[in-house]
Structure formats: structure tokens, C-alpha cells
């Protein structure tokens, strides 16, 4: 495994920047440039690169879709949220439609925001491509077929001309997929969800989204710490504050940045990546969660530092 690339990082519902938000970014950037002179476009570029991320960039609004570049010819993805549309276009641009490709797609669960991209995943319509869809839900195939039934969508699942195979993964049992060992873990979420641990060439990645943690259950906490143990990267659902997750949003099936830091510290994780961002949050709010999380890691650190980032659409993590 070489690299993680995020195509969709938003939770629950796709969102887009509003005109007002773009305008505010421009106002802030121009205010910062007041009185400066720029000798060239490169000079302007350097100024822009020095701006805070919520001013010069955006976390994006596509729903869950994460690519793991293995270094092999096959493509590996987690979830089929709306971000998979852009991934599919990029894959076609890179390889062209004539050269058959193989895609391995690991599904956390089949809630809408995690499957809605499949009807817009162009490689699925191209004969010769092979798609393996892995998961631990017995209704995985029926859920994906059903979302393309009339009257919900005009193009039936049968129009997907790639070879599509569904592979059931037994939770807790390691499975060999290419050069990787893949293990799933049952998580607390309405209708269940599954976390994934990917291991290859001494590297490990944990993808754990749509997962609520029962704070009073120490055995469960230990199980997650074991699942995360010594991972290079943990991609973690940190949608809510801890206060919301245990009060007004208890049983909504999501977790917090506080629990993320605690579990990763317990497990000796090297890099925590906050994921599945609250759709109501703008770029400044997500950036605030990131700053808070880094500070929490700093003031509670007892061992090696834990690197903390917040995923954004287009972000890459080198392994």
C-alpha cells in the first residue's frame, strides 16, 4: 500500500460551497493581500498557498469514497458515496475505456450516502471491467440493485455491463485480496456497519466510519484498540462533538474526535484522519474541529505523538 486518496469525505449528505461562502473566502484573501504587490502569477500562487486552508481551499462535499493505492494494477476503494463519480472519471482519464480494469470495493454498510455514487460510476457501465464488491451484510447486493429500480432511478442495475461480483466477508476473519489482508469488524450503527483493517507489506490502514462507541463498555473499547493496534493510519468517523454523541445524538450511530484520539492513543496509531464530516459544518467549523483535536492530542499525550489530519476531497496521504 502506497497512498490513500480521498474522493468523498462528507457524512450523511453531499453538500456544496455556496456563493456566499466563496465570496467570503475571496474577501478574506483580498483583505490579506491589501498593500502587497505581486511580481508574477507564481508570486500570487505563493501568497495563496500561505493562506489558511478554509480561506484558500475547502473540505469538499462528496460523500464517503476512499481509494487505497496498492502499487498493483487493481483499484481498491472503500464505499460508493458520491465521491466515486470523480474517481471513476479520473480512472477513465488515466487508463482509457478500452483497457479493462479491476476494482475491489469494500462497503462499510449500505446507507444511502455510502452507495449513492454507484449509478454514476462510469467504469461500471463498461464491458470488460471487473468489479468485486465486498461486505458483511447479507443484503449488500439487493440494496445496490434496489437503488437503481424505478421509480428511484431511470437506469436499471442490469445496464451496468461490467462484471460485478459480490463477495461476503465474515467479520473478524482475515481475507486475502491481492497482496492485502483484509479484516472486518462489526460496528454499532443502525442496520450495522463494518470497519476494515487493510494490511500489506508491513503497512496497515483502518477505515472505520459510521461507528458509535459505547463508552461504558470497556470490552468493546479494548476490541477497537486491538483492531486499531499500531495502524499507520486510522480513518475515523468524527462527525459529532462528544457531548452531542452521548446526549442529543446518542444512538445516531456516529462518533467524536475525543473518542478518536483516545482509541488511537490506546492503540499506538501513528496517524488519525478525521472523516465523515458533519454536513452542516462549513470549512471553518471543520478546521476548528481539527485544531481542537490536535490540541487534545497534545495535552493528553503520554507516548509518541499522534499525527492528526482532517480528510478533504482530493487529499492524499503517503504511506
Amino acid at each position: 500500500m502506497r497512498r490513500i486518496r480521498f474522493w468523498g469525505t462528507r457524512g450523511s449528505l453531499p453538500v456544496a460551497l455556496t456563493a456566499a461562502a466563496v465570496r467570503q473566502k475571496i474577501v478574506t484573501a483580498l483583505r490579506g493581500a491589501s498593500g502587497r504587490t505581486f511580481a508574477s502569477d507564481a508570486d500570487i500562487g505563493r501568497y495563496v498557498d500561505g493562506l489558511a486552508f478554509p480561506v484558500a481551499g475547502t473540505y469538499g462535499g462528496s460523500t464517503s469514497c476512499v481509494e487505497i493505492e496498492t502499487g498493483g494494477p487493481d483499484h481498491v476503494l472503500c464505499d460508493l458515496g458520491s465521491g466515486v463519480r470523480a474517481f471513476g472519471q479520473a480512472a477513465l482519464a488515466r487508463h482509457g475505456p478500452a483497457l479493462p480494469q479491476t476494482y475491489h470495493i469494500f462497503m462499510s454498510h449500505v446507507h444511502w450516502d455510502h452507495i449513492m455514487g454507484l449509478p454514476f460510476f462510469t467504469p461500471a457501465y463498461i464491458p470488460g471491467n471487473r468489479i468485486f464488491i465486498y461486505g458483511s451484510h447479507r443484503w449488500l447486493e439487493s440494496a445496490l440493485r434496489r437503488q437503481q429500480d424505478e421509480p428511484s432511478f431511470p437506469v436499471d442495475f442490469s445496464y451496468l455491463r461490467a462484471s460485478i461480483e459480490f463477495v461476503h466477508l465474515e467479520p473478524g476473519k482475515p481475507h486475502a485480496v491481492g497482496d492485502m489482508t483484509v479484516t472486518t469488524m462489526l460496528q454499532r450503527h443502525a442496520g450495522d456497519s463494518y470497519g476494515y483493517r487493510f494490511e500489506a507489506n508491513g503497512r496497515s490502514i483502518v477505515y472505520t466510519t459510521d461507528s458509535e462507541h459505547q463508552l461504558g463498555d470497556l470490552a468493546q473499547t479494548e476490541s477497537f484498540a486491538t483492531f486499531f493496534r499500531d495502524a499507520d493510519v486510522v480513518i475515523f468517523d468524527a462527525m459529532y462533538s462528544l457531548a452531542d454523541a452521548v446526549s442529543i445524538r446518542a444512538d445516531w450511530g456516529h462518533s467524536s474526535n475525543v473518542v478518536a484520539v483516545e482509541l488511537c492513543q490506546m492503540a499506538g496509531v501513528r496517524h488519525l484522519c478525521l472523516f465523515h464530516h458533519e454536513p452542516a459544518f462549513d470549512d471553518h467549523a471543520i478546521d476548528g474541529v481539527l485544531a481542537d483535536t490536535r490540541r487534545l492530542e497534545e495535552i493528553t499525550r503520554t507516548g509518541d505523538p499522534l499525527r492528526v489530519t482532517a480528510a478533504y476531497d482530493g487529499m492524499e496521504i503517503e504511506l
Partner: protein
Amino acid sequence: MLETSSRQFADVVVAAPTGRIDHQSAAQFEAALAPLVQGACSGKGALVLDFSGVEYISSVGLRALMIAAKQLRAGGAKIAVTNLRPVVAEILAISRFDRLLGVFPSVRGAIELFSAAGLAAFDAAQPPPAR
């Protein structure tokens, strides 16, 4: 090792845990709070937590606080957390628990808000100022 002492001032219970409230000790903290919550509810009074001796609180400890707060509110009583060390104050702010619980700089300030009888009893129990 977590220890929790408590004192009664009229209808206000002041409890002072000392140590770390983490995954190992949170159950002990929850158990220590249970009778104090009951006592505060039976008198429709308040539970004031003096956190000056708390070095750290984890998510499980915060959950114990939230359970106590819920029980107290349901029982017509109140809760406040006071005297936070800087690290614990930051943890409460980052977790947004400072929005769920009343946070006060001092025990006296919290009692003053909750109960005149409690405040009188608290003040009467303080040592006279040194001359």
C-alpha cells in the same frame, strides 16, 4: 487511584474527586456519584463537584458526569463543575461538555447561584481569615 470525598452544606452536596478519571477509574467515579446524586435529588438541591484535584478526565468519565446530570435534572436538582485545572477545562471545552454542564470558577460561586441556605452553611464552615 481515584478518591471522592463529600460534604453537605444545607441542600447542597459538594463532592471532591481526586486523581485521574480515566477508563480504569470511571466506574469507581460513577459509583461514588450515585449516592450523592440520590441525596441531592431527595432534597431537590444541588451537587457541586470540586474538580481541583482532578488531573484528567476521559470520555468515559465525561459520560458518568452526563448520566449524573441527567438524573439530577430529572430529580429536580442541579449540578455544577468547579475549580477546573487548565487541562481538564480544555478537555471539557473540546468535548463541548462545558455546554452541557454548568462550569464555575469556584465552589462558592456555584453554591451562591443554587442555594442561599447552602451558601450560609458553606461560609460558616470556612476557617476565619488569618490575622
